[in-house]
């Protein structure tokens, strides 16, 4: 086994696979107020297996930056309450997960909404707000 250089750096970066799912509490919050705190709480969140969190030195409530060629967001980490083998993390489908999705569809028109690869690192920043996700597109 090689030396884990990452652990000597301040905020090691790992590669992570993310898939999206639907959550009725988030859907309820969306119907009520898509700009509200409840919708953000359920959306700006990455659910991970205990194994992966230990491996990456993360705890529930930590904030992480997720970044790839298409965008980046800061979200909160939560440990999955389910029996997850690890290797894949989960986000409820939302503008936060969509920030990491490519619009390149091979001409077919269906983006890879559920098949995201990103770099993950622990950060102290606040979670990305919908306002700041929108910011650059205001006319």
């Amino acid at each position, binding site marked *: 086994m090689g030396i884990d250089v990452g652990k000597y750096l301040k905020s090691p970066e790992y590669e992570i*696979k993310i*898939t999206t*799912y*639907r*959550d*009725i*509490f988030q*859907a*309820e*919050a969306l*119907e*009520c*107020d*898509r*700009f*509200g705190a409840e919708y953000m709480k359920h959306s700006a969140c990455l659910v991970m297996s205990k194994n992966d969190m230990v491996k990456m030195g993360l705890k529930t409530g930590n904030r992480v930056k997720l970044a790839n060629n*298409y*965008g980046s967001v800061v979200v909160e980490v939560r440990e999955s309450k*389910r*029996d*997850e*083998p690890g290797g*894949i993390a*989960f986000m409820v489908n*939302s*503008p936060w997960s*969509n*920030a*990491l*999705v*490519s*619009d390149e*569809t*091979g*001409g*077919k*028109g*269906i*983006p*890879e*909404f*559920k*098949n995201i690869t990103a770099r993950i690192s622990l950060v102290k920043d606040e979670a990305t707000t*919908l306002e700041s*996700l*929108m910011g*650059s*597109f*205001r*006319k």
Partner: protein
Amino acid sequence: MVTCPGCALLCDDIEVVVENNRIKETRNTCRRGAARMKGCVNRLAPSVAQKPDDIENAIKKAAAILQNAKSPMLFGWSNSTCEAQLEGIQLAKKMSAIMDDTSSFCQGLLIERILQKKFRTCTLDDIRNKADVLVYWGSDAQDSQPRHLSRFSYFPRGELRQRGYEEDRIAIAIDVRESNTAKICKGHFYRIPPKGDREFILALMDALSGKVPAYEPKKMLELAAILKKAEFGAIFVGLGLTYSIKDDFDILIPLADKLPNFNIMPMVGHYNMRGFNEALFKETGFVNRVKFDGKAIHDSRYSIVEALRKSIDALLVVGSDPLSSLPRSVIPHLANIPVICIDPCVTLTSKIAAVTIPCAVSGVETGGSTVRMDGKRVELSKCIESNYLNDKEILARLMEAL
């Protein structure tokens, strides 16, 4: 009893308590349906160029934008009544516009094949009365169509299934994640890796043909044995499966052929997506992604994602929030063209729109027809009075103004 417009199950057993012309309480809805029927906190107001205006001016300005565009696109439609959808199709024809709906990046691939009769399908009522083996594949109905299991599939005591889930029904989940639906399918949850559905289908076909599959042979043979014994089975195809096999979708056809007692059911989210797909199919032979140019031309260039990247110079959005639901990397294109937004609520898209036109909430402030996920036509009721025009009326006014 009224109908809930919260998802494509269109539950028609809802009671509402109205007080001061507001829905104070709903009975029999799930959380999502209750929230939809009680309404959003941010109602949309008419605006032009990001400034408040009146509805007449907003409609006039919208017509001018569409008229000046060389290549306008009309998008959304899955949260609109059938009447509004038909009006929209006429508008698209009149303007030689591109037209697409959310099925373009959702269940369009499946609905198209169902309308082309490439799959055996049935109604949700057949499932409630007869189904004994239920396969939720890439579908977390519990969170997406929350009353699916309780009204139609797993828990009810149907005509031929009087002993319900305790003895008469087997529920199976095939998914990447142990979803809430998978948790209910105790002992019959097949976890697959992301994009693992194709391999799973091939292995299952081997197992059904009596061959030893290369992938998880023991589990696949066990699953094949359950499926073969089914008297009336249903495969609920969720977005997880559709996205995973989108490049080779027809692989599902030989699997369905090997399961003669099974029906395929598209798990549709938005309440009238299927209505739009059926209406456009009837008009053009295609369920989405068309350009009207004398005749209807169908091409993936006319999908919302590809069209935004390339060809359109104005976008009318009806009852949808592409800024929220599309990849963020496509949004700069969207922000560069004039957008007209018709919606009951403020959305991310309405916030960048050149023109916003508020409409009544279908199923609450206005009635209309819809098509359930299984193709059954269901009527929406008007529960409260409102001064808002409905989306059909707005589209008709737009048509007149052109």
